[in-house]
């Protein structure tokens, strides 16, 4: 049924709340946790929140593009794992007894940046495949990426035989363990940098504008001369690129490649983007919103932990907030029939 046309004319509190629901929730949460536990309200703790959410944040930046085109990407957690084990396998210390690639002993040392890029390359290739599947076979993105999620996880496990890939060289781990300005971990910097890039791509390039058009009405986009297939391939490639970057950064930070890395992270990324107002009906969303969404989830994770709430209860609260945020959001941009 059509939204009541008359009530939209004059300003009302309901409209205001639904417009800024996420920020209201964020501020309320910070206030509650700050009162309950003073340790929450420290600069160090905020850096902690950012650090622990950066990898999921990168996934949110990636999947937001897919959701804007009215798709979804479930493969991101597995893509993290693939990029993790492939990059790590190139920079294991040669003194380690069970190298993934024993042949490395006979080769000149592979530079850290090559390993870094190789991990990203392998991970991102899954995005290209996802994009081609979605664009050309017309299978539903949920199914296409469900398939690649399973395949990528299988590939990571097969490659490592499910063993961790430890003992990584310091020049590689430094990429993940270093900080900027003496306090900001590199992974946070990467996340913030990528957020800026994502924002530029989405709002200041043709690709971004085309993505909104494709998600808003794919037939109209096509009739307007937009190359829908290219746009979709780009969205899924970008999404996997973000996940690969997260995978390699986490690997360098934890000094170990892990085939089970990122299990379930794709859903956290989707949740963050969704809380941040990226609509599943397509054509709507912003990077600022995504960051807000990540912060809401990060504050909940951290605040509940620091105030000593049961981890099981944490999940329940988190789930409830996701749903509430989306209910408000759907009122804001409801599509009219």
């Amino acid at each position, binding site marked *: 049924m059509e939204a009541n046309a008359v009530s939209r004319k004059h300003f009302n509190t309901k409209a205001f709340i639904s417009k800024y629901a996420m920020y209201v929730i964020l501020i309320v949460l910070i206030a509650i946790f700050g009162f309950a536990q003073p340790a929450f309200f420290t600069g160090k703790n905020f850096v902690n929140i950012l650090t622990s959410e950066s990898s999921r944040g990168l996934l949110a930046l990636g999947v937001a593009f897919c959701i804007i085109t009215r798709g979804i990407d479930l493969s991101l957690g597995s893509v993290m794992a693939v990029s993790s084990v492939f990059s790590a396998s190139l920079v294991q210390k040669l003194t380690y007894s069970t190298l993934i690639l024993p042949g490395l002993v006979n080769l000149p040392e592979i530079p850290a940046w090559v390993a870094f890029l190789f991990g990203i390359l392998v991970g991102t290739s899954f995005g290209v495949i996802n994009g081609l599947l979605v664009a050309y076979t017309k299978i539903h993105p949920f199914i296409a990426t469900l398939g690649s999620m399973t395949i990528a996880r299988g590939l990571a496990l097969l490659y490592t035989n499910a063993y961790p890939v430890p003992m990584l060289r310091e020049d590689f781990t430094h990429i993940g363990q270093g900080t900027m300005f003496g306090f900001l971990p590199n992974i946070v910097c990467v996340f913030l940098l990528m957020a800026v890039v994502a924002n530029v791509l989405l709002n200041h390039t*043709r690709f971004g504008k085309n993505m909104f*058009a494709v998600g808003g009405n794919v037939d*109209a986009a*096509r*009739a307007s*001369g937009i*190359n829908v297939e290219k746009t979709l391939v780009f969205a899924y490639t970008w999404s996997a690129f973000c996940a690969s970057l997260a995978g390699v950064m986490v690997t360098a930070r934890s000094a170990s490649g892990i085939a089970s890395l990122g299990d379930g992270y794709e859903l956290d990324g989707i949740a963050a983007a969704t809380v941040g107002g990226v609509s599943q009906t397509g054509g709507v969303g912003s990077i600022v919103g995504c960051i807000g969404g990540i912060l809401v989830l990060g504050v909940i994770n951290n605040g509940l932990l620091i105030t000593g709430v049961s981890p099981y209860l944490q999940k329940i609260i988190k789930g409830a907030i996701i749903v509430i945020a989306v209910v408000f959001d759907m009122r804001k941009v409801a599509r*009219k029939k």
Partner: protein
Amino acid sequence: MSEYVLEMIDVSKSFPGVQALKNVSFRLRPGTVHALMGENGAGKSTLMKCLIGLYQMNSGRVLINGEEVHINNPLEASRHGISMIHQELSPVKDRSVAENLYLGRVPVRAGVFIDHKKLYRLAGETLQSLGIDINPYEKMGNLTVAKMQMVEIAKAVSQDASIIVMDEPTSSLTSVEVEQLFGMIRALREKGVSVIYISHKMEEIFSICDEVTVFRDGQMVGTDLVSNTNVTKLIHLMVGRDLDAMFPKVTCPITDVIMEVHDLASGDRFSGVSFDLRRGEILGFAGLVGAGRTEVLETLFGLRPKTAGVVKINGKVAEIRRPADALRYNMAMLTEDRRGTGIIPVSSVASNIVVANLKNYVRKNGLINHRKISSDASTYIRKIEIKTPSKETLIQDLSGGNQQKVLVARWLLTEPDILFIDEPTRGIDVGAKAEIHSLITRMAGEGKAIIMVSSEMPEILGMCDRILIMHEGRQTGIIDRGDATQERIMEFATSTGADTTESHAI
């Protein structure tokens, strides 16, 4: 017992930017068929949607059998005995006829289990009582549109409807099916059911209706017994303004040929279409719904594969495989289905205006020039008078006419040489219609070549320099403006003799 089964008194309804109904009154006698007439956007459908609770009216009263009622949704309407047969049916195609007939109220046993035996027995009885020959076990999706419509009417009757609203029920029926429908309507009238019959087709009004009420620009402009009126009177009431204002045709210089089409075909949808198109010309495509006119445009624009024929632009063979190719040849296409292939509902007016032309807004450094988008959007909003609160308003919040103008702006911005316009004024109000007409004429005056598909005969006759007529996927003739009359066009549109079951679309 009141004299009227239904009275709607002083009903008003507005949408953002449009006053759709202004103090409209309407009275319906029991056991009569009452026609509602008026051009698209005159307010007939809006009034009916207010009646069945799809829209809430801003003011006015509804009386049923003399008692005031408030109807908030279609369910309440059906409790008051009002049912509407929509123009576009939405049956559950994978379920049986009986299940559709009793959708939402299937008979149950012990409170939960569906009583299939009773369901099919009841359905059979209902269909039989109306003389409808349909097997209740048949899958709904296997029926013709006409039969689906009959099931829909049977459903209304089985809900004890005393008032049935039919919105252009014959728009996709053959003439044999129309006769069957009329038979059913007469049977309903015998039973004392009142029918509100929305239609554009004069001959139907005079063959089935008892009374007629005419709408124009959201107002009720006349109501009378059908036996007291005639076609001329009705047209005068409906149009109410001189045709020159509706169709501000300015003859402009028609110059060189820009596009030549030889023997074009696309699969089994159409074949053998040949014509040429000149700068400054408006070429009309006339024909019945389903004749293949839209498909020709889609094929020329790269939205549909070309299976035969040659297209030349400026004398050179043009290969157009996708809309992006068409854009490179400076072609533009205003599609028929505004919601389906036109607007991007959740995007702003400005984004919708520039979406087909973004390449011209990319700076040298690869970034979008938002300031230029904003100023061009403002220019076009002013130039073609789009009524919108701001350029950042979502297009879905605009009226149909203004959405259409946004789409016109989208294509004007690409500065096309060749413009395809498919049913440009479908579903928009009369005022906006005249403005769109004058826009189209102005574009032709600027030397653009225009092809316009329209099912509205006055639009075709009033606007076009030449008219190409199609019938069932074949081109049956091209006539000049001077030789064109409604009768001649209909001759071509229904020609090739073999098939006479097709109904008149206009």
